[in-house]
């Protein structure tokens, strides 16, 4: 880790350049942030990404439409099922396929379980960066319960490959919905536990209130999405604005913040825990009978055309743009609009004027996954 001073000897009051990462315990992956400091305050920062670029979009051009589902797992590896759902729905939109109601309900349950799992990881790592190390272990204990549910459903804990174009590959095991409801009961009390440890803790408030304030207009201008946008007071949630899966049949609220600081983003996500549990309960109690996969042709070959479809992943608006040339079984172009990538652009604006110790809190507050940022 090197640092050079800009014109001047050591301890000049001119600017100092510090490099954070790419191997760094607090950057949640291989992220490199180059900070320019004036004394203790951050004047500017340069975010360097690309350390996890695996060429997913290019690889997709050589795989058929079903094989790409595997690749989407590995983008946001913390909430893989959400990427699966987003991609499958995009292809279904292009092919005008009808997804049976049962599949849509199960997809909703899985998406919301992923939201809880992703937020568990977020709260754990965010709290740990700020120093409250116990919350990390509590959150992962609950995440394990979710991963167990997923393992029962599709056999994997992290990269699920749990969707197919037109529905799901397998039906849910018998008794799975009861387990999901049991999990909801447990999770409710656990969210209260996290809140007891953090929400009204004076040290937590001092570390997060007023840090990284961004107004609604600025956030929209920067292209932020998800809780980062909602924390600044902008009501934008793809589940409400353009419902997909079974969200049009669910009753839930979308938490909106007011001050646009780290604390509000934290509160938004904590409330999202509870709203997700609400959705899961409604969905699990009312899974309709029926087929689990719709009428899908054997060989997936959409007609020539292009489409864009977005869903609300735990990190924000996850969009897929696909172009099919109608002739081959592979897409002509596959492009992802990852929420973490767009939110990361806001980091530069957020860290200005803050201290070095806040940079770590802000990276956690935006909630990024490098797999998604770099693809």
């Amino acid at each position, binding site marked *: 880790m090197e640092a050079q001073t800009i014109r001047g000897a050591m301890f000049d009051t001119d600017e100092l350049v510090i490099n*954070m990462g790419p191997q760094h315990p607090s950057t949640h992956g291989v992220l490199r942030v180059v900070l320019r400091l004036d004394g203790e305050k951050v004047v500017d920062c340069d975010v360097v990404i690309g350390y996890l670029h695996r060429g997913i979009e290019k690889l997709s051009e050589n795989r058929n439409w079903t094989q790409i589902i595997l690749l989407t797992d590995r983008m946001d590896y913390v909430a893989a099922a959400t990427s699966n759902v987003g991609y499958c729905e995009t292809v279904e939109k292009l092919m005008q396929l009808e997804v049976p109601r049962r599949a849509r309900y199960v997809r909703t349950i899985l998406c919301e379980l992923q939201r809880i799992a992703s937020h568990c990881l977020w709260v754990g790592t965010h709290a740990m960066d700020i120093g409250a190390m116990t919350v990390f*272990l509590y959150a992962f204990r609950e995440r394990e319960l979710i991963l167990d549910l997923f393992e029962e459903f599709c056999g994997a804990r992290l990269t699920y490959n749990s969707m197919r174009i037109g529905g799901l590959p397998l039906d849910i095991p018998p008794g799975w919905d009861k387990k999901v409801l049991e999990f909801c009961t447990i999770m409710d009390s656990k969210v209260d536990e996290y809140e007891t440890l953090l929400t009204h803790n004076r*040290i937590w408030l001092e*570390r997060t209130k007023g840090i990284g304030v961004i107004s609604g207009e600025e956030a929209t201008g920067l292209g932020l999405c998800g809780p980062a946008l909602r924390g600044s007071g902008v009501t934008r949630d793809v589940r409400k604005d353009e419902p997909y899966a079974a969200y049009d049949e669910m009753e839930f609220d979308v938490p909106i913040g007011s001050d646009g600081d780290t604390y509000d983003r934290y509160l938004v996500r904590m409330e999202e825990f509870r709203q997700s549990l609400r959705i899961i309960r409604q969905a699990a109690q009312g899974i309709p009978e029926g087929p689990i996969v719709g009428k899908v042709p054997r060989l997936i070959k959409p007609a020539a055309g292009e489409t864009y479809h977005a869903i609300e992943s735990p990190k924000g608006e996850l969009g897929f743009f696909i172009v099919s040339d109608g002739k081959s079984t592979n897409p002509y172009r596959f492009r992802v609009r990852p929420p973490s990538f767009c939110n990361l652009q806001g980091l530069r604006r957020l860290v200005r004027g803050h201290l070095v110790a806040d940079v770590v809190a802000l990276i956690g507050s935006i909630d990024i996954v490098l797999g998604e940022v770099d693809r």
Partner: protein
Amino acid sequence: MIDGFVIPLLKIVIVLNATLVGVTYMVLLERKVIAWAQSRLGPMRVGPYGILQPIADAVKLMIKEDITPVRADKWVFTAAPIISMVPALIVYAVIPFGPEVNLFGRRVSLYVTDVNVGLLYVVSVASVGVYGIILAGYSSNSKYPLLAGLRASAQLISYEVAVTLTLVSVILVAGTLSMVGIVRAQESGHVWFAFVQPMAFGIFFIGGLAETNRAPFDLPEAEQELTGGFHTEYSGMRFALFFLAEYANMIVVSSVATTLFLGGWLRPFPNVAALGFLDFVPVWMWFLVKSFLFLYVFIWVRATLPRYRYDQLMRLGWKVLIPLAILNLVVTAVIRVLLI
């Protein structure tokens, strides 16, 4: 001859060894308590329930390669961990584990010595301990350890002011600077000073956390992710000495708090004859239990609370704790003069 020389020597040997063993097992205690707070078990493999883990750690650290940076100041580099560790150990010369007892037919006092400026001795020795950190940062001959070391020591000397002011309030109540005298004052007053001086106790606890660089005040240590911390260039046993010095300082703070605020070696309610059956517990056991409780709270706090940013930490020390400590001192002095 025996009373003047051999017995104090024996006491010193016992106290030092007990302290060093205590410090190494503190490491295990911390890992276990934090693990239990986090729904896990901590070290379990080495020995039954992980009891032998500190020995494994000690062996590992001793056989590690000892690296000294090329352009580091060799004497200062070697001296810094020692300067960190020694003050923590020599404080035990004045800590009373018990009053005079009959041991093998002799009257033996369960403290190495009773200086009548005992409390001031503790504070002054603690203030010398700051040098270890400054010199460690300096002798590494690198910008970041130097800055981190200066920061950590600035934190220490800031909180020293608040802690010393609370100790002055305790001295006002007890009327004496000697550690044994303070415990006796609690005995004759039939009340632990934690109840007489609750604010002083609170400030002492928070100041103690900051003095030993413990969470929530451990940013100079945690920020080592970014700036290296003052002990970056240390490896092997030298590094171990720094960490042991931190735990030793924790035990010192607990012992001092026990003596000053929790009644030292006194059993609960020493004047209530009905609880006389508690007298079978040896006096030093009460001392150890109280110190242990204090240590447990230290570790508990570390597992629970997030950490303060450095400027918030300094603001807390200077703008909140010191005024409160002065206020406490003034009120205590007024009450002492007017009422007692």
